[in-house]
């Protein structure tokens, strides 16, 4: 075998297979806000009565 052939040989340590799932503990809060905002009939409004006194002497 040539030196080149030997040097092309390779060994690789494979990473541990740790199948992850991110803990989205904030999901209920986010979803609640989102669903509330999107729900039919939902909305924000403000009513302010405007009045003023005019003094006449």
């Amino acid at each position, binding site marked *: *075998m040539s030196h080149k*052939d*030997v040097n*092309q*040989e*390779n*060994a*690789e*340590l*494979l*990473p*541990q*297979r*740790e*199948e*992850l*799932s*991110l*803990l*989205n*503990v*904030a*999901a*209920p*809060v986010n*979803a*609640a806000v989102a*669903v*509330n905002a999107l*729900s*039919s009939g*939902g909305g924000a409004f403000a009513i302010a009565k405007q009045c003023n006194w005019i003094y006449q002497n």
Partner: protein
Amino acid sequence: MKYLNEGIEIIGKSPDSGYTIPLYLIRTSEGKFIQLTTLLFYTVVALQKEKKLKAVAQEVSLNVGKIVDTQIIKYLMRTKLAPLGIIRDSNPASQQEQKSTNIILSLTYHFTLIPEHVAQFLAKLFTPLFYPFVIGVVLTSFVEVNIWLFMTQDLGNAVQQIIYQPSLFLLLVALVLLGTLFHEIGHATGCEYSGGKPSRIGAGLYIVWPAFFTDITDVYRLNRAARLRSDVGGIYFNAIFSLLATGIYFLTHFEPLLLLIVFQNIEILQQLLPFLRLDGYYIVSDIVGVPNLFAHIKPILFSLLPGQAQAAPKNLKRWVRWVVTTWVLLTIPTLIYLFWVLFTDAPHLMTTTWSSVLLQMKAMQENLNSSNYVIASIRGLQLLIIILPVLGIFAMSFRFGKKGLEILSRVSGNLLVRR
């Protein structure tokens, strides 16, 4: 004379590989898998059986069909096998380990939640859920439940209930966590059903987020279908969890359970992303038969530079190279964007978190004083949710800093040696 370290196990040919050349697997006593090319594999096989190097060389020559002398065997042992800790009394090379597991994108600060023997017991218990007939029923029902949920149900009522009864919020968070843990048992069950041996289930920190994980390293020795079954086992169990929630809803008419189904859908979609080390990443990796996609980022990026085509990963099948290159070209901008957002938002996040923590603590104290323990617990949970990302950013910055110092000390050491 014994040449190999204790506990080295010969596995055999790597099944359904994406490479044009045959690759082989061995396992160390710590359960780590090492992938080898033909000559190295047969050298390890012969070293395990033979007592003299001459006999080793003869056996290797027979197996590879080329003349291999003792000098070559000694050279392979010293330069290729010893750095991986395969050869007796050699140090398991930290260098190689660091190469194969990217320090930023690996799980850190992890601990065991369910030990190996319990995880295997649970996996065996749930194995019938992978019978083809059961899969058919589950998937059909899952589609029907979602159509029913989004076409006929008003989720606003469930949200309102949570707003008016804050204790339900705690319950919902607990159920979301339980669903995520069930997802992990799904991976273990998929692995067990396919003939593998799942290991522990645990929790840790991934980049800046808390995460659950299942160690199913054993799937490396299984074929493509078995590996994919283990990958999708998690989201399949999310679907089952949704069906359980639906069943309990029909019995109790407890509307917050409908939100739980929505969260399961969100988790399924999140898990299918092919970036980071989520399920989607492993699905792509197993379809193409390349175990460590992240190791191909650097050579592929280099190969795209003018005149650097030779840097491209060698021995990948043509279609596999296309898929891996596409994955790299999508992953790099995604990761850059992710880290950019994390670092640029960090100062704002920290100041906001600090003021929010002060407010929450004050409110929690008031709740405790008035014996309102449910609300106080929710505030405690909110505090945790607020603090976790900041702690994650600190932990990641620490790892970045440590890695930077290591590189600096290595570079400065090399310069001193040259002088």
